């Protein structure tokens, strides 16, 4: 009996092997077509309704109007001289860290509206992102030079306790001996380590602490998972086809949640879901084609912001054409719903648009910054190239309210379940770029581009 291995030990000439391969590839192509057909059939079966349709059928749903939104402007905290690049709440929901492009970071006590510390960074690089660790002991700063620096945050509590005696200052009329020395407010934080990527792939756009010993940094092409104690990148997730524009994580939402996922959204609508325990993405999807009125084409929109909802597995995607999609990880690539600013229900708010103006030389509106006499049909070149779309999304504690920072319109509060815009958070101003709800859901922090302030909003008992 001839053993089968002996027959195959003679190597075939290349032309024969090429023919065999070509035949195999043909079979694979047939299989693939079959699989794709089965998948589309399955996905069509999943898409049986949308979020707004479901809520329209519910009779008991309380509608939220402007009067029911309990948000009062508590503080407009001044101190930054420049545009605020990044703003993060600490896990205790009382302190806030904000970074501006002047290599200066401010550590605020948001409950009293004052700054507790000023951190001057030694580097001269442009700061893009910052983050504060769950224990509030470490801060991370991501710069334009591909380096993420980790600093130890000064222990302001002990500095304060040494200098101030809270009970005494009200009762006695002593002269101010217990003043904090101004020099202790200005601190250069002690540098713990610098995490540098070897390839020059851009700036560190976001940093997210997973815990005190690991951090996730994103640049435009890669996501790195670092071990802070060893200062090495434990894992790198590469994004070869589309640049990353936004990242969100539910790994530790300031100590409240413990998930394992993070999502990266990029150019051309690509969304990839990763689990930090696995070396490659666990799911990929892309947002549907959208009609771009400026080009008269159906295009894939860029994903400009992403955020997980307080309920696990749900996330919202904001795009550069100002639409918001909702997804559920368990549903996969079928979106739950799509919200538009230009829908008929939101017409009151879509008219306030800084960019919908005609800037042809003969027009009288040339050079005005607030084009309230807007006509959506007169689209300008500026509105396609300068428009960042939805820049930031944040959710209230129950997820019912969605706060978005929209380029050219400002801060909007949406009702997540019906897709209606409830109110504009900042009145007539159009310059909110970051918006963030505190981890315990009691306050919202926004920034103001023109005035460079950090604004705190919270609920008030005597709200009518």
């Amino acid at each position, binding site marked *: 009996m001839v053993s089968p291995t002996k027959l195959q030990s003679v190597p075939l000439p290349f032309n024969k092997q090429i023919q065999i391969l*070509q035949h195999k590839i043909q079979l*694979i192509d047939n299989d693939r077509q079959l699989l794709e057909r089965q998948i589309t059939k399955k996905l069509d079966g999943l898409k049986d309704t949308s979020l707004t349709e479901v809520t329209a059928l519910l009779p008991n749903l309380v509608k939220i109007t402007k009067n029911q939104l309990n948000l009062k402007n508590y503080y407009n905290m001044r101190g930054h001289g420049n545009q605020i690049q990044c703003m993060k709440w600490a896990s205790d*929901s009382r302190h806030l860290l904000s970074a501006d492009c002047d290599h200066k970071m401010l550590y605020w006590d948001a409950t*009293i509206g004052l*700054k507790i510390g000023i951190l001057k960074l030694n580097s001269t690089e442009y700061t893009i992102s910052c983050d504060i660790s769950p224990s509030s002991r470490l801060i991370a700063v991501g710069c334009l030079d591909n380096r993420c620096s980790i600093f130890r945050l000064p222990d302001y509590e002990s500095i304060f306790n040494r200098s101030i005696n809270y009970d005494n200052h009200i009762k006695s009329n002593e002269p101010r001996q217990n003043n904090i020395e101004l020099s202790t407010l200005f601190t250069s934080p002690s540098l713990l380590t610098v995490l540098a990527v070897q390839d020059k792939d851009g700036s560190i756009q976001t940093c997210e602490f997973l815990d005190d010993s690991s951090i996730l940094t994103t640049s435009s092409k890669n996501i790195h998972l670092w071990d802070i104690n060893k200062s090495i990148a434990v894992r790198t997730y590469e994004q070869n086809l589309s640049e990353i524009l936004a990242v969100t994580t539910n790994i530790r939402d300031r100590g409240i949640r413990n998930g394992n996922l993070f999502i990266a959204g990029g150019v051309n609508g690509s969304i990839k879901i990763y689990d930090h325990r696995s070396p490659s993405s666990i799911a990929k999807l892309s947002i549907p084609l959208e009609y771009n009125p400026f080009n008269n084409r159906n295009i894939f929109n860029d994903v400009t912001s992403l955020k997980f909802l307080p309920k696990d597995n749900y996330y919202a995607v904001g795009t550069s054409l100002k639409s918001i999609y909702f997804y559920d990880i368990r549903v996969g690539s079928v979106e739950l719903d799509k919200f538009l600013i230009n829908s008929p229900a939101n017409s009151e708010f879509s008219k306030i648009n800084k960019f919908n103006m005609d800037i042809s030389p003969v027009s009288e509106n040339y050079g005005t910054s607030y084009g309230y006499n807007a006509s959506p049909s007169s689209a300008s070149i500026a509105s396609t190239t300068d428009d960042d779309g939805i820049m930031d999304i944040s959710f*209230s504690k129950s997820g019912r309210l969605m706060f978005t920072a929209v380029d050219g319109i400002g801060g909007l509060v949406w009702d997540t379940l019906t897709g209606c815009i409830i109110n504009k958070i900042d009145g007539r101003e159009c310059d909110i770029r970051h918006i963030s709800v505190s981890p315990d859901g009691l306050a919202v922090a926004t920034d103001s581009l023109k005035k460079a302030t950090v604004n705190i909003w919270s609920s008030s008992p005597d709200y009518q």
Partner: protein
Amino acid sequence: MDRENKPNLQVNTSATPASSPNPLLQYKLLTIKYQRKNQKNEELKNTLKKELIPVSNSCLGLVDYCQNTTDYMISSWGSLPEEKNPFLQGYNKMRNSNGNNNDVCCTIM
């Protein structure tokens, strides 16, 4: 039309691999193509195997969560008393201190 005038585009298959690189290159390219296509098919099979829930179930879950979680930014949940709202406490403390406190905020020049 004229079959003799057609250029001969076929690869010289009678040559041995060592002397002519074309079949080798073609073989390498085809193996890479085969591997990539195989991988893609595996991914498609995995997506087909995944247990996915329909949109209606997911929406109902979200509605349920939104309606049953207390959220003090919506006035139908009531208002937060002062003891529980640190922002209100801080605001009242600042308002009532009348300048006799050391919580002076410095202005950065």
